[in-house]
């Protein structure tokens, strides 16, 4: 009995030893020479493999960064979140312009309350498919379908379908603005916008291009393209894209005049402190945000 145990131990031990030596030799012989910078760059990335940069994962992106730094001595054309980009630049000894942090914004507020559902959908939970089937529960062909194509693509768990509202909602703390959700949305509702100072943003929370009369029927807050905000804006930050107003975040000074003037409540201002009742927007607030 002991003999068997003894022999087994000897044989397996020797076998293991020999194989380990062979493995080591082979590993040394076929070692792939890789720039150690790639590993460093990869380590500085979040590693979510979100695909927002257009590369097949963070590793591929890191390789591209190192190659670009080596060949061109810059990182032009390579985009990741601004914080990660600065880390990458630091690793590679380069400087990048500190791009403004961005965030995904779901430009639809067609909640169950604002845009009551007239139909209900039974079938595959794919927005892209439902989009081909019908205009949407509320009848608005530009509304969020709420089936979560964006949720499935998000590598950061930063976007979810709010069950009560029935639309996608972005988690501001988790979103890095990679843009994957924006590409996934069949209706192009999700926009990647600068995060804004103190996280404050003013934007048109609707992408509707339907005619006013029809929009009125479908949705309480849908944009009707009345252009009132356009006239009101003192900074020429608002432009019309077709019949839809668009607030240019670079020009917007967060004065919120457009929010007040919009007859439909389509323009949303987020993360502002609650206003004092019935007082006009004070200049001081404006000045603060300007600086």
């Amino acid at each position, binding site marked *: 009995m002991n003999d068997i145990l003894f022999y087994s131990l000897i044989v397996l031990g020797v076998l293991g030893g020999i194989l380990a030596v062979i493995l080591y030799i082979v590993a040394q012989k076929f070692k792939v020479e890789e720039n150690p910078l790639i590993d460093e760059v990869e380590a500085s990335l979040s590693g979510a493999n979100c695909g927002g940069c257009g590369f097949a994962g963070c590793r591929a992106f890191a390789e591209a960064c190192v190659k670009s730094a080596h060949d061109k001595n810059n990182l032009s054309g390579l985009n990741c979140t601004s914080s990660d980009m600065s880390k990458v630049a630091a690793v590679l000894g380069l400087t990048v312009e500190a791009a403004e942090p961005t965030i995904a914004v779901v430009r639809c507020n067609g909640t169950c309350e604002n845009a009551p559902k007239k*139909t*209900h959908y*039974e079938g595959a939970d794919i927005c892209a498919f439902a989009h081909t089937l019908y205009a949407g529960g509320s009848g608005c062909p530009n509304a969020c379908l709420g089936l979560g194509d964006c949720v499935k693509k998000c590598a950061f768990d930063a976007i979810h379908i709010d069950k009560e509202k029935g639309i996608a909602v972005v988690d501001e703390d988790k979103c890095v603005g990679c843009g994957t959700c924006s590409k996934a949305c069949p209706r192009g509702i999700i926009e990647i916008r600068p995060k804004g100072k103190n996280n404050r943003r003013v934007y048109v929370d609707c992408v509707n291009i339907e005619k006013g009369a029809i929009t009125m029927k479908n949705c309480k807050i849908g944009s009707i393209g009345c252009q009132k905000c356009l006239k009101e804006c003192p900074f020429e930050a608002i432009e019309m894209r077709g019949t839809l107003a668009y607030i240019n975040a670079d020009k917007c000074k967060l004065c919120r005049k457009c929010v007040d003037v919009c007859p439909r409540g389509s323009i949303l201002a987020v993360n502002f402190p609650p206003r004092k009742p019935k007082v006009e927007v004070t200049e001081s607030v404006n000045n603060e945000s300007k600086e």
Partner: protein
Amino acid sequence: MNNYLISGSPHVHGGESTKKIMYSVIIALMPAYFFSIYYFGFDAARVTFISVAACVLTEWLIQKFLIKGPCTIADGSAIITGILLAFNLPSNIPAWMIIVGSIVAIGIGKMSFGGLGNNPFNPALVGRVFMLISFPVAMTTWPTPNPIFSNTVIDAVTGPTLLGHIKEGLSQGIAANDLIIYEDIKGFIYSGSIGEISSIAIIIGGLFLIFRKVIDWQTPVIIIATVAAISTTCWLIDPVQFVNPLIHIFGGGLMLGAFFMATDMATSPMTMKGKVIFSIGVGALTIIIRLWGAYPEGMSFAILIMNAFVPLINKACKPQRFGKLVK
């Protein structure tokens, strides 16, 4: 406001559902169940009840506390696993062993893979084989049948199964013909697990499933035919070493396995071609284990081994694509 339903076509459905299929299987198992109660007395009912209850409870607990998903015990698949597990056990097995077996069957055999439809192995058989290896004595000590309505009081508490008796005898060098005493078979001397005791009751249930189109007739027929072919060949060559093929066909768990366990949807191939390969494999392995292996009964091992081949078979046996005919 009219709340119209929007869905992709088709808008009508054949009416088949998972629940209906599962409850059909349960109904099909009933004849064998009633017969086993008649045959083994209320011990059979006790084992089956404990097994079903343990399986359903295990699934419920896993769904509720581990997966935290929707409750699926109502679809009846856990009940089937419970019944099939019980059918593979001797009727005098202690309750705690049944519970352990049920937990393994559902917990490891099914839920760890993601529940119904994702399990590569038949859960009941996973539980059964686990018990066979863990509790070999309890699992192979068969109580003597004690038919409810029979007047004879049987003294012996335990007896061998027919196949076990033959295996034992053959290994001692007794000729096959001398081992079989037909009076004994008729007289309910030989024992077995709860479910394998009446082939006729199993066949009745199986025919119901075939009629309901829950299972294909090909799978059981091919399994039985393969077993019959190999055992007959051996018997014709050497009747001293090998017993009458009828004993192999009707004597053990072949019928139960062929009709109820090899036909399990999740663990059998999907195309007819694949099903044929699978069935031949199950039949051949069963009889090989029975004739030349260490165990007197080979059905559960054969099915589990073939279960492992199912993904491969599925990959190899694609259906004939329309428009791809080679002229």
